[in-house]
């Protein structure tokens, strides 16, 4: 088996990481930026004659780029697992309201001031919210084989979660600082994401990737239907539990770090399948790579085009929405 797709995705990701070092306000050449990165990676102290430049590259751009990549990877894996679990190529945490559930719980934490307790609180709450949404979806759609039923149920869940979030926002309108914080967070951004944020996102994303890979044989078998998967030795209740926990962990991590970002988990696995086929052994790591490259590309391109801060979720939705419609026309009718 050749690994051309893996190699290509990795190269694109590296190229984007390099681009992320030089794109943005402040004139930094690639060689200067690389010099700083190499020095700091080697444990060296910042150059005392260029402290601002050092801080710009090492404390702002590098963690920001890596955060975007990790969030993209988490969303790519979460999308692939969601599609496999629901046997539905149009399923995605954003479309199905799983991310919305994560956001609702995170905002709840803000409203109660829980997030001051530590960096892990918001991701934790977001993961619980994602788990609750997905558990509700699985429960409601237990016997639904129709693609459209699952999507419509997800839309209903997303509406309810969105309404609760808006309600909390309305109730906090007396407190401007809180309201502003919630709105900023909901819009999502990679602005000011630090090494601490990166650490908090990287570990759960790696755990999610390992858990997803552990499920790969089960997810492959499930593509033949529940009864056939069962006859092939797949323990469906356990598969559902582990997949639910994995998706919740990944979506919670991504949402907590930069708000609701939709459609990455929808588009990325589709592109990967075209290149590498539907087997989850390759689909999952490739979706992580391609998701990382995709979301980093969104961040680099928007920063290259404008100095206005544009939430990444806006860009992914502007691209992903039409793609969903196109996929729906291609799959939706035949797959019901």
């Amino acid at each position: 088996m050749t690994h051309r797709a893996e190699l290509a995705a990795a190269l694109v990701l590296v190229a984007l990481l390099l681009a992320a070092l030089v794109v943005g306000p402040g004139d930094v050449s690639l060689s200067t930026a690389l010099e700083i990165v190499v020095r700091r990676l080697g444990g060296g102290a910042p150059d005392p004659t260029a402290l601002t430049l050092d801080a710009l590259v090492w404390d702002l751009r590098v963690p920001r780029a890596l955060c975007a990549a990790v969030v993209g990877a988490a969303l790519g894996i979460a999308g692939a697992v969601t599609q496999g679990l629901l046997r539905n190529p149009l399923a995605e945490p954003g479309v199905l309201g799983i991310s919305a559930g994560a956001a609702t719980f995170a905002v709840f934490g803000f409203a109660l001031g829980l997030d001051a307790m530590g960096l892990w609180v918001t991701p934790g709450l977001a993961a619980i919210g994602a788990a609750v949404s997905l558990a509700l979806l699985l429960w409601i759609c237990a016997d639904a084989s129709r693609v459209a039923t699952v999507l419509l149920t997800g839309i209903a869940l997303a509406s309810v979660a969105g309404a609760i979030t808006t309600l909390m926002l309305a109730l906090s309108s007396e407190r401007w600082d809180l309201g502003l914080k919630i709105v900023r967070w909901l819009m999502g951004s990679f602005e000011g994401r630090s090494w601490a944020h990166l650490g908090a996102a990287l570990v759960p994303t790696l755990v999610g990737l390992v858990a997803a890979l552990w499920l790969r044989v089960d997810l492959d078998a499930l593509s033949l239907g529940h009864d056939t998967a069962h006859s092939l030795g797949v323990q469906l209740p356990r598969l559902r539990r582990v997949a639910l926990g994995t998706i919740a962990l990944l979506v919670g991590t991504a949402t907590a770090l930069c708000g609701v970002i939709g459609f990455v988990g929808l588009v990325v696995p589709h592109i990967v399948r075209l290149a590498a086929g539907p087997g989850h052994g390759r689909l999952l790591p490739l979706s992580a790579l391609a998701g990382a490259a995709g979301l980093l590309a969104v961040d680099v391109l928007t920063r290259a085009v404008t100095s206005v801060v544009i939430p990444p979720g806006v860009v992914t939705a502007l691209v992903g929405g039409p793609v969903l419609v196109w996929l729906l026309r291609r799959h939706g009718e035949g797959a019901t």
Partner: protein
Amino acid sequence: MTLATHGAGVRIPDGPWLVADLDLQAKPGRVTVVVGPNGSGKTTLLRGLVGARPLDAGTVTIDGHAMARMPPRERARRLAYLPQSTPLVHDLDVRELVSLGRAPYLSRIAGPRDADRAAVDHALAAVGARDLADRRVATLSGGERQRVMIARMLATGATTLVMDEPTAALDIAHVLSLLALLRRLADQGHAVLAALHDLDLARRHGDDALCLLADGKGGHRFGGATEVLRPDELADVFGVDVTLDGDALRFALRPTDP
């Protein structure tokens, strides 16, 4: 390996029994057919036999081992199941599809081994589908597709094969060639248990037969195919006139009373 049920029963939830007190044996070397009117519970029973739904009464054993207590992967290596339809989510090629039959052997860490690839080749050869290996499943004819689905069952190494209407939606040439394949598999030592809707073909190609009576009490008959699928019995169960013409069953609507 012999698949046996002991007092097995399935029912509509809070409703009538579809099958009750069933003692059936599907033995190696024999083709066992399951027939019954629409809605008599063939699919429900088969799903119960393979554990895809719980039985409402009784137990299933494979060579004397209680299936419910068997580790799922071990069960999957002994008992394979083909549902009436297999809607594919993705566009697989034939080899990828048949390889999914190796799921009960695959490690969670390592990839497929040589033994897995050999089993897939062997399964494809056993159903005469070697030349289809690189085709997309979506491009196969109905007959080719069913052969490949059976290869997927064989790739598990299971010797007990349970199939729900494997001949449905096939034209007569493919029906006959599929039944010939089932006979060949039985001759190689497999226990074949298949629901069939064509009573005449079931009678000619089955060694043993289970006929569900659809009487609301779970009534059924099990035994040798020619004994169970007698014209007079079938006439009662299916509500048509049945006669035996040489070796062939003939069916006619009953004249309605004016």
